[in-house]
């Protein structure tokens, strides 16, 4: 039983320690480098002026068309009956328009387009186990088909309940969410929904400019808009911004603070894994206890 002497034990502990330290020195750079996330000063955004939207749902059609999804006949989108129930983005469409009552004028309801908000500090990017989500320089938060393992943690993490999943596909189920028309914008085109919007409810531009535009609108038409740009500070800011005439909670926006959604969880993660010191310290501590208790045993044995 007493085959290994103390020197051997110490040697092994040191070797393990050095290996772990080496790993920890290499790891942080590699960990941070993994998802290519950029928060560019010039990132783009969209300002959604919900007081302008007429609920024509052309954006839904254009989105499907440009993403190779089944879009159907554009004339079918004039059908207003669909507003009888509230819909959410899913695998059949990455954006939907919902109807809300307008307290100021019942005959002119408020229409609200819903899609990914493209957070500046996205929960999905932070949560994804394989880093399949990334925040691009253009402001887009996109999903990488080649990395995803379908764990759906992004759906758990998203404060806006946006990512959707192909529950009825046995193979290659996808995560579905608005990609801010990443491929279109890369080639100098507008996002499909922005391009088709007849009334320019959706204004595409640099996020910083859009905030200025939104502030001016609020200042010039205080009766028309609430003094709140949703997405300016919510969960650390989002690329898509909303203006409305009705309280955002009544338009089914979640009530969110200014702290980025992944903030707490990331600081815990980084605390536990600060340069791997806590795990290595725990390892060393347990090694120490083991060594001491072993020796105590031995000396007790000798005493007998």
């Amino acid at each position: 039983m007493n085959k290994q002497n103390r020197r051997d034990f110490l040697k092994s502990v040191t070797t393990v320690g050095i290996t772990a330290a080496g790993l920890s020195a290499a790891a942080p750079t590699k960990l941070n480098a993994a998802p290519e996330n950029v928060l560019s000063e010039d990132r783009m955004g969209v300002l959604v002026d919900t007081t302008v939207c007429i609920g024509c749902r052309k954006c839904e059609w254009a989105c499907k068309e440009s993403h190779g999804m089944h879009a159907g006949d554009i004339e079918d989108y004039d059908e207003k009956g669909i507003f009888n129930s509230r819909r959410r983005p899913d695998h059949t469409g990455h954006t939907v328009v919902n109807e809300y009552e307008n307290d100021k004028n019942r005959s002119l309801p408020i229409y609200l387009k819903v899609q990914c908000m493209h957070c500046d500090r996205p929960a999905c990017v932070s949560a994804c186990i394989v880093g399949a989500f990334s925040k691009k320089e253009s402001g887009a938060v996109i999903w990488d088909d080649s990395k995803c393992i379908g764990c759906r943690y992004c759906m758990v993490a998203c404060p806006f309940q946006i990512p959707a999943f192909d529950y009825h596909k046995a193979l290659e189920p996808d995560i579905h969410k608005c990609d801010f028309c990443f491929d279109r914008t890369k080639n100098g085109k507008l996002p499909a929904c922005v391009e088709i919007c007849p009334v320019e409810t959706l204004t595409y531009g640099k996020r910083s400019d859009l905030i200025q535009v939104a502030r001016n609108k609020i200042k010039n038409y205080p009766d028309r808009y609430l003094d709140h740009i949703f997405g300016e500070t919510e969960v650390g800011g989002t690329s898509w911004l909303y203006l409305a005439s009705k309280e955002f909670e009544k338009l089914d926006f979640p009530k969110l603070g200014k702290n980025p959604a992944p903030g707490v969880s990331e600081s815990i993660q980084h605390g536990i894994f600060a340069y791997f010191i806590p795990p290595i310290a725990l390892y060393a501590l347990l090694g120490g206890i083991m060594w001491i208790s072993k020796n105590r045993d031995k000396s007790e044995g000798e005493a007998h």
Partner: protein
Amino acid sequence: MELAMKPEQMKKKFFTPWVIALTLIAINGLIFLAIRFFWGIGAVTNLSNEHPWGIWIGIDVAAGVALAAGGFTTAALGHIMHRDKYEAVIRPALLTAMLGYTFVAVSVAVDLGRYYSIWHPLIYWNGNSALFEVGMCVMIYVTVLYIEFLPIVTERFIGRVNLPGVLSRLNGTIDKILRALDRGLNKTMFIFIIAGVVLSCLHQSSLGTLMIIAGPKMHPLWQTPVLPLLFLLSAFSVGFPMVIMESITASKSFGLKPETHILSKLGSMVGPLLGIYLAFKLGDMFIRETFVYLTELTTESVMFSIEILLGVVIPLRMFLSNEVRKSPTGLYIASVLVIFGVLLNRINNFLVAYTPPYETASYFPSIGEISVTLGFVCMEILLYRFFVKHFPIISIPDKAGINKAKYSIKGA
């Protein structure tokens, strides 16, 4: 002096009426599993875009990991603190942990939309993700558990390798490999044992970090920044009750006398651990003033109260009582309550507390989900039975009274 204990293979026959019932439940689970793999997750589960995680994650994975905590807690007690008297319970606990974690991995694969990409975290890293950490830790820990189990395999087969037919020519070689493995493991086992405990501490807590990112989607009774600590503390406190429960069940099943003296000593450590857990849990509740939610009668408040009262407070009181600790029945009931409490806590954290902002229907597991989960539990029990029949796992009083368990810290 107490009679020395020695792990032996169980000699009873495998099939009993109970085992047949378990087998049927397991087969039922496998049928639903087949449907899941042929027609997708949606064909079997009640999962939706609102509720992306169901009992396959909440029970199979989260509770599964917690209830496999017996492995690392007994390893810490027996090997690191070097309390040799507990060695009798280390092997059963190790087997449970090994099986438990194997099924955790299998359950994850079942729940993954792209189960065939389960290896992706090995090459695509995301250090910010709590799930990545859990995944990596579990992956490494499963390996560590298998390595820790190897000495039992070598002990079983050294000098007894007997392959049939043509393969019998390899008998000598395999025996040599086993012996070399045994020698190597003798010198290095302590590395894996410490690693096992460290890895367990890491992912048991990170399992709690998992739900923090859900933020306001999680009911304030459970959503707290100290969630990882609560998960770790509850894992600590459920480890020994799990060992006690299994030991008594196995004793009953194989017609042995329960090791009451070891178990009641284990039980005496549960009280303080549960106490610390309860203190943190209540402290957190009072600091965040979430007790206001307990005044309303909601699913959440009821589930929280059951979790605390039935799963923590009552067993805590029981484990603090000498009489309870001395009786196998008392120990059994108290342990089952703790296990129930932690199971419910994981279900609460992952399923009950999860209230998505755009909820049209609340989640309740489908028959398919329940079947698969029950099937896995049954398979685990069946495999446990298989292993204890074919490997020296369960210790019985050593009539010869000479050899100590072979599997212990080598070189001590």
